[in-house]
């Protein structure tokens, strides 16, 4: 069992967390001007990196969304950052 750190609650079991999405995507606006390709890329396309990654996670038990930097090969967690403010 790996421990992830919720910025609000501290270290908790991995089963309490839910992976949301890769960090850094910006919703294309305004909607009326967005082409299908750009919208599909925003919704579905991922870098899916091998190694260092930045992701948005949800701590399901407290409802906190936060940014987690970790490694997809070693599973090392670099840091958890609160999304309160403008971290991501």
């Amino acid at each position, binding site marked *: *069992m*790996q421990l992830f750190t919720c910025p609000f609650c501290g270290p908790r*079991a*991995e*089963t309490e967390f*839910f*992976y949301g999405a890769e960090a850094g995507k910006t919703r294309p606006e305004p909607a009326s001007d967005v082409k*299908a*390709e750009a*919208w*599909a*890329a925003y*919704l*579905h*396309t*991922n*870098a*899916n*990196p*091998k*190694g260092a*990654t930045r*992701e948005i996670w949800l701590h399901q038990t407290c409802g906190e969304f936060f940014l987690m930097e970790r490694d*997809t*090969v*070693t*599973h090392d967690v670099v840091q958890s950052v609160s999304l309160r403010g403008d971290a991501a």
Partner: protein
Amino acid sequence: MTDRYSALSLFKEGLRGHKGWKQAWRSPEPQSHYDVIIIGGGGHGLATAYYLAKVHGIRRVAVLEKGWIGGGNTGRNTTTIRSNYFYPESVALYDFSLKLYEGLSKELNYNIMLSQRGVATVAHSDAEMEISARIVNAMQINGTDAELMTRDQIIAKAPLLNQSNTARYPIFGGVWQGRAGVARHDAVAWGYARAADRLGVDIIQGCEVSGFLIEGGRCAGVETSRGTIRADRVGLAVAGHSSVVAEKAGFKLPLHIYTLQAMVSEPVKPCLDTVLLYPGTGTYVSQSDKGEMIIGGGIDRVPSYAQRGNPPVQETVIAGLLEMFPSFGQLKMLRQWGGIVDVTPDSSPLIGPSPLPGLYLNCGWGTGGFKAIPAGGYLLAHLLATGDHHPISRPFDLDRFERCRLIDEAAGSGIAH
């Protein structure tokens, strides 16, 4: 030298001390140019090479494999073959694959040990029985075999199942596909490798692709750990590393990577002659010819390239197994492993041209790639040979995300992908 496999050749070789068996495939040095290069020497890559040579007569083909053939997800799955899907596009694809599997041992002259022992997906409530009836209807309309089973029929198939009325996940009945079954995974890779090699295909192991040769905006070959190799067309069949190789070619794919675990128990005498899936627990199980229980479940929910699983999912899978078969609590577990699966947003594969002209995709099979090996190879070979889709692969093109024509099998067939 003995070239062809048969009962007679086995007998003759037995008398000669098995000294005359020919090497099953060569280990050639890479040439400087091929008509087609296929990246990835798993089942899909090897099948692609075979069908290119066999169906399309294109024999100047190389399969480049960074490790050893069949050592990725082809060697890590639970070997189930089925076509019990919901949408017409999926049934057309997976049933085409099952039909090719049915003739494969003979076609390849290699015993893939296909055992059509059937797959039962158990329903745990009246509501699930109604959904099961809907899936059975859809499968029958789409032209594959399916049967709605009663509780008694399910129990007759697997008498050791937990039959208690107070079970957390009681048996109400289920969906049965009798043509489904299991096959020997290594034999599928080795059979395609041997048959492709005999048609002139070069299988080059220990050859990792490090980049792409792009000329005039077109893929003109690959840079590898064994030098530059040029090709008219390139196929990508690397499963879990699709995003990594795509990044070298300059594009991203709609994929997430997850670990899928499997495990086997110690071998015991025959006690389960079908494949059982409990949607309630997410656990599925079959018994190998050696007697081991082969057990799988859902994916680890943490995106990972680690090729090893985390304990919480092992616990869920084994708890589910004991809910299904309380008597299996006596079994000792023998091995546990993980493969990394490339999952698309709609749990259906990506087959078609990539954003880089000259490079074609066969990926995104997620947790279900083994059953699709013959079809995936056949369809990628068609693309590489003709430059166009086969009608079966057209719906699975990358453009379905822009057209909002997703084939959402995670929702449609309700099977734990």
